[in-house]
């Protein structure tokens, strides 16, 4: 039975050989070049038709400008050893310059060559396979570093210092090669790690962008919601109040006292609702407003807020204000904090004949603490958890009026400034409010 092999299935060995990535040259035993890999041609600046069929040393003579050139002699000895011993022969690193194709001299080249015999069944040498590795860039690098090392030594001598250290250089080329391989592996690992990191980064960035977009959308929704609340809830209230008032103006003489009282109840409640809407809006605006940081003269702000708050007080209210440490914050908002705390203090002390409010401040490290205390109605500590809630009140409207938003606003402002707020109260004796702000650095 004959084996039939289609020509298409026979590998094109010449093409294969010429395409191998290594630098290979095939010599006849008389050192005539008979085959060459593309990579070798590239590294030696030659073309196949120029060198195949020619004698090795005719193609690659020693550089006549280099008096120490011994490449030809060394290579010849190695090849002769191969012929003699029929064993592979690895050569030491060689400086073997290659002639430039334009005839303008030689290129400096360093090689790590080895030669192998190719034998027939009877161990007759048919070819010598010459393999070379171009180590020029490594050698030049090493040379540079050696020069650097010399400089470094001189420098060391000059400054008389020993602590100047340069990494140890490997003299041995193969050790150097190993070093390079290791570096290469490390580099590949790092590239892999980096690309994974970049992937993770991209994923995170995408997520972040999504979240920001969602946040912006809900912020916009919130804004248009607030707008609708303020616009559309107020209009009917205005009509209720206005028409009640018209009724009062136009037909007051036809109403008895009870009728007029009922009209007044309508109007009082309408106004109250108007105020609730305004304060709710203000509260929601606080969450969105950007803080404009500036220097704050806290003593002046507290004094001004007290003057405003006490102007409506019916009783005698006094303030002891000690010098307060200055702070940094949004002046409009911190003004609001002082006003809300001090008007609360005034309001809840209104039933005292002699109301007394104390404002103090101190600095502890990078925390500023301010305290407002009064001798007013105080509050029941059992309900402390409701104190700073929106629309939460710890007193009946008949005792003290209010919407229950003031302290929620204070809480939000202080928190947005990175501070804390807390309080203590004793029913019938008074309340103390503390808030902190980060000290300016």
């Amino acid at each position: 039975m004959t084996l039939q092999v289609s020509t298409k299935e026979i590998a094109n060995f010449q093409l294969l050989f010429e395409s191998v990535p290594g630098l290979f040259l095939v010599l006849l035993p008389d050192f005539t070049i008979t085959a060459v890999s593309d990579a070798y041609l590239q590294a030696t600046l030659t073309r196949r038709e120029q060198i195949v069929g020619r004698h090795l040393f005719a193609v690659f003579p020693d550089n006549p400008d280099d008096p120490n050139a011994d490449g030809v002699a060394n290579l010849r000895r190695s090849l002769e050893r191969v012929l003699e011993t029929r064993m592979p022969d690895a050569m030491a690193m060689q400086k073997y310059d290659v002639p430039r194709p334009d005839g303008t001299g030689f290129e400096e080249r360093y090689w790590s060559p080895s030669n192998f015999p190719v034998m027939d069944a009877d161990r007759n040498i048919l070819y010598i396979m010459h393999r070379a590795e171009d180590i020029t860039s490594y050698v030049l690098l090493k040379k540079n570093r050696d020069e650097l090392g010399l400089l470094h030594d001189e420098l060391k001598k000059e400054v008389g210092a020993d602590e100047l250290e340069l990494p140890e250089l490997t003299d041995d080329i193969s050790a150097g090669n190993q070093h390079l391989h290791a570096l290469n592996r490390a580099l590949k690992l790092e590239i892999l790690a980096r690309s994974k990191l970049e992937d993770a980064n991209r994923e995170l960035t995408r997520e972040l962008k999504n979240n920001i977009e969602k946040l912006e959308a809900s912020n916009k929704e919130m804004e248009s919601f607030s707008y609708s609340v303020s616009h559309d809830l107020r209009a009917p209230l205005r009509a209720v109040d206005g028409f009640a008032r018209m009724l009062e103006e136009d037909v007051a003489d036809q109403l008895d006292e009870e009728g007029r009282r009922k009209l007044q109840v309508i109007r009082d409640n309408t106004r109250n609702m108007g105020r609730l809407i305004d304060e709710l809006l203000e509260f929601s605006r606080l969450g969105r407003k950007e803080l404009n940081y500036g220097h704050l003269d806290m003593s002046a702000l507290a004094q001004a807020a007290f003057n405003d708050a006490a102007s409506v007080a019916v009783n005698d209210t006094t303030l002891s204000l000690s010098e307060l440490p200055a702070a940094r914050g949004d002046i409009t908002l911190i003004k609001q904090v002082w006003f809300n705390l001090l008007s609360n203090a005034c309001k809840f002390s209104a039933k005292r004949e002699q109301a007394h409010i104390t404002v103090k401040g101190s600095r502890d490290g990078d925390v500023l603490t301010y305290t407002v205390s009064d001798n007013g109605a105080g509050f029941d500590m059992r309900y402390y958890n409701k104190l700073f809630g929106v629309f939460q009140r710890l007193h009946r409207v008949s005792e003290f009026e209010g919407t229950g938003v003031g302290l929620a606003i204070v809480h939000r402002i202080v928190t947005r400034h990175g501070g804390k707020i807390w309080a203590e109260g004793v029913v019938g004796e008074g309340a103390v409010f503390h808030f902190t702000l980060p000290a300016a650095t």
Partner: protein
Amino acid sequence: MNSFERIDILLVEDNPYDAELSMRALQKKKLVNKVEWVQDGADALDFIFSQGVYEHRVQDEPLKLILLDIKLPKVSGIDVLRKIKADPVTRSIPVVMLTSSAEGQDLSECYKLGVNSYIVKPVEFESFQEEVEKAGFYWMLVNRVPAS
């Protein structure tokens, strides 16, 4: 409308109750028979520029004041304001915006367009009345017709 009677104030307000409150406030200043009330931005433009149903409006004297709500059907108060302030003939008519809230970009937009003043309509009748009276009185006074 009576085209022989001179109109001094144009009230542009889609909420009839707000309109009634405003009219009542103006009435107290004896200004009410000189007020024309329209309910949307399109009618406002027709009136101001004597077009559409107001084609035959005699315009020997310019308006002395326009009270203009921001939120209006068809054409918004801001668009009406833009047209008024873009036309060299109507540009000098004082425009006071009426708005239910000081929220949003509306007011800064109005100022950019050259609004003369604005009123945030208060819930309380007295304050609202006071604001409208003030605006009406002030701008009518500023734009007093020379005594004939």
